């Protein structure tokens, strides 16, 4: 019985936003009829349309398992990962695919992530630790930081970010303020601030504590509701605001270094 049901197919209409800014093509929607099964994802349906209807359809994708964050797009009005969204869960006969809002568009569903990654890079998203002796760094010695599971829990959920840009596209502040770093970059700033291997808090705070920085977040919370990996960027931003304003103290004990032999 289960096998018979699982093989049931139905036809849906796929409406895809089409444009090519290099060829001054005016934006329009193309419609494709696609056969889908219970487990067919939006990405599967798009690739079906690309394979059998129109090979010029522009889509960016890679892993097909919500790990790479390449296939973010607006599906039925909400930013989602195409590979992580099953047609059956949308409960609609027509699936509308648009490029991610708040990103410059290149072609069809492909958007430009240059600015997004620039914001990410600007907040110095890596461990900075001035206490590591210079000879250890120079000699590339095998050393590691001591961290307890409790230390890891403080930032773990924020390290699940795959930089898919869904939170950035859902953010109402990003839509109006191009200098605003966005929820992804700010939650990563919190991720490294909460990490007890990191001592780069003062320089990172200098970067985000400016006119178009963290204070322009109005706590709409859309970033958290669209995240496909369960990260809560809005929480990270509010915690970071608490640290900046002095309501909460980031009383982390900086992790000590030990060699692999210890």
């Amino acid at each position, binding site marked *: 019985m289960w096998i018979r049901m699982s093989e049931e197919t139905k036809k849906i209409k796929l409406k895809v936003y089409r444009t090519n800014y290099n060829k001054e093509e005016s934006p329009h929607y193309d419609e494709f009829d696609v056969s889908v099964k219970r487990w067919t994802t939006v990405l599967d349906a798009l690739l079906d349309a690309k394979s059998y209807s129109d090979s010029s359809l522009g889509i960016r994708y890679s892993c097909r398992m919500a790990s790479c964050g390449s296939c973010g797009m607006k599906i039925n009005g909400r930013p989602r990962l195409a590979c992580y969204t099953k047609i059956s869960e949308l409960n609609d006969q027509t699936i509308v695919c648009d490029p991610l809002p708040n990103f410059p568009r290149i072609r069809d569903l492909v958007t430009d992530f240059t600015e997004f990654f620039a914001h990410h890079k600007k907040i110095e998203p890596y461990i900075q630790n001035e206490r590591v002796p210079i000879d250890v760094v120079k000699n590339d010695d095998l050393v590691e930081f001591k961290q307890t599971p409790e230390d890891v829990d403080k930032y773990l959920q924020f390290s699940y970010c795959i930089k898919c840009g869904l939170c950035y596209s859902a953010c109402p502040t990003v839509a109006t303020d*191009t*200098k605003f770093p966005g929820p992804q970059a700010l939650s990563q700033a919190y991720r490294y601030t909460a990490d007890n291997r990191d001592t780069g808090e003062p320089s990172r705070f200098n970067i985000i*504590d*400016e*006119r178009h*920085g963290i*204070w322009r977040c109005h706590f709409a919370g859309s970033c958290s509701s669209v995240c496909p990996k369960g990260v809560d960027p809005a929480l990270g931003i509010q915690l970071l605001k608490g640290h*900046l*304003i002095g309501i909460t103290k980031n009383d982390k004990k900086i992790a000590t270094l030990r060699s692999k032999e210890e």
Partner: protein
Amino acid sequence: MPLLKLRESQIMKIHYLTGICAVFFVAIHILFRIGMGMSFNESLEFHNVVANYHNIYYVILLELILVFISIHGFNGLRIILLELKQNQWWESTITILVLAAMIGVIAYGTRTIIIGSQL
């Protein structure tokens, strides 16, 4: 140039504190309107309003409300306007204009309070 060389977190701290203080003092102000043995409408009659200005504690309360609401309100306006455009000229102009307007409103309001209280 950053506003009075304050960091944005310091400005926002002032913003939140003035907001909380404004709510607190406005609440006291409203309680005075309804808790002085007269009706709300009666308390807003000209001679009753002028009488408030002759009470030094009430004068201080009104001045505090004026200062807190002006700082909070004009900084809020600055934040809204900052998001409209992102360039140095716009940001500096908005900051200077909002600061000037805030000082102007506080100065005019203080003048009114001083005249009303006949200090």
